[in-house]
């Protein structure tokens, strides 16, 4: 019996160490992620407040959007650079607008890109957003990669994994700590350390599911770059295998408008999200890659690429993405919290703030515990049933 209880005390101590170390390593980064994530929840709204949202002049009744080729040409002709990289649409949020990315060449780095926002009804340039970091982009790149590229991204993924381990070990410790207490108790009459511990436990256990979902989907998202690389090397390469020995497509390309129509005809229930031009990282050297999305909240996350020969305008191939890219894209809304309107964004922000409180109270508890070393652990073990301080002492002596 004593031996069994001794095992239990040892087990608790092990989990406590796991919780302490995983938390200590990831907390600073998690705090950064929670703080930068807060404004990112409201990305669109903040952009709107900063006056970045464009007024879309009402189109004359009965008028139809111009041919995409005409709109695109009208936009590109205003710039000295001539190579189109991407064209995209946002039918739900910005109907009638066409977003264009141009550069000196399709292979040019992102930093050299120029942006155009076109009115599809008038063919006029609505805006030329500068390609520079603003506040929200700094928040975004801090959150995604700490402004350190792919290594930063993968590092944050690992921190997210540690965060999840900290959550799991925290739940394991919740058992022995709360065994004799009612849910949600906060011991205000005792030391301020106990008060903070109770708050840490309360907010930690309430945000458990949310923090796990947002944490794990965040980790999944950090794998998007290697996943895209793998897809390009396998499925995309397979789709364009017949073009392997052909030189890169040059001269006048086939019609963009026709390419979009051709792709839509092959997947009538879907909408076109964006088109990657030949030579860009999201296409082959010979094709328009037309990326289609579904039109329900769930299917709009599932992307389907159609490859259109940029010379003949014929459909070369259209396939579903492999499971690993589907997993990443379906996991994204559960990380962003952008799929349930403004009330969900507010709830997301509250959960985020609660998580910040869990992190801060955790740091406080670590500092306070160092002052009265091992007292907390003893209390956890004490609280767990049929244990006395003396058995813990024996246990320690055995070691």
């Amino acid at each position, binding site marked *: 019996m004593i031996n069994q209880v001794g095992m239990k005390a040892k087990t608790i101590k092990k989990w406590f160490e796991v919780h302490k170390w995983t938390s200590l390593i990831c907390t600073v980064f998690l705090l950064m992620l929670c703080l930068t994530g807060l404004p990112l929840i409201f990305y669109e709204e903040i952009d709107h407040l900063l006056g970045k949202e464009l007024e879309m002049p009402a189109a004359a009744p009965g008028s139809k959007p111009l041919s995409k080729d005409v709109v695109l040409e009208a936009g590109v002709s205003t710039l000295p650079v001539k190579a189109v990289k991407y064209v995209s649409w946002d039918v739900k949020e910005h109907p009638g607008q066409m977003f264009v990315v141009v550069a000196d060449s399709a292979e040019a780095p992102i930093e050299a890109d120029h942006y155009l926002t076109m009115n599809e009804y008038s063919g006029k340039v609505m805006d030329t957003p500068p390609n520079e970091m603003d506040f929200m982009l700094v928040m975004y790149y801090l959150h995604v990669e700490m402004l350190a590229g792919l290594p930063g991204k993968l590092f944050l993924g690992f921190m997210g994994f540690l965060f999840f381990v900290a959550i799991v070990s925290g739940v394991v410790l919740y058992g022995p700590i709360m065994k004799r207490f009612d849910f*949600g108790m*906060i011991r205000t009459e005792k030391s301020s350390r106990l008060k903070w511990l109770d708050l840490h436990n309360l907010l930690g*256990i309430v*945000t458990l*599911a*949310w923090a796990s979902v947002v944490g794990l989907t965040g980790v999944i998202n950090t794998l998007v770059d290697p996943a895209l690389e793998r897809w390009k090397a396998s499925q995309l390469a397979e789709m364009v295998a017949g073009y392997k020995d052909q030189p890169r497509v040059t001269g006048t390309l086939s019609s963009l408008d026709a390419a979009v129509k051709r792709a839509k005809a092959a997947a009538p229930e879907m909408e076109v999200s964006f088109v990657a031009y030949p030579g860009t990282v999201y296409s082959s050297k010979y094709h328009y890659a037309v990326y289609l999305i579904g039109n329900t*909240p769930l299917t709009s996350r599932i992307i389907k690429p159609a490859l259109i020969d940029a010379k003949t305008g014929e459909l070369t191939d259209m396939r579903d993405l492999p499971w690993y890219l589907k997993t990443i894209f379906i996991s994204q809304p559960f990380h962003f919290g952008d799929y349930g309107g403004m*009330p*969900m964004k507010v709830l997301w922000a509250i*959960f985020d703030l609660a998580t910040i409180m869990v992190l801060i109270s955790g740091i406080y508890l670590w500092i306070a515990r160092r002052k009265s070393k091992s007292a907390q652990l003893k209390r956890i073990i004490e609280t767990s049933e049929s244990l006395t301080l003396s058995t813990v002492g024996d246990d320690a002596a055995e070691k």
Partner: protein
Amino acid sequence: MKLWGMPILLSVITIIGLLLAIMGLGIWHLLSWVFLSYPVYVMIRYGINYFR
């Protein structure tokens, strides 16, 4: 159950709330907000004792 009842209930309600909003618009969103509001209510209901 006294120990794990609330944690399990809160987790299940949160997960259902997260899934409801992806199922559709309108009533689905409304239900999602109701479900996700419950853990927030619990945080406030018990967290308030911290300031007592």
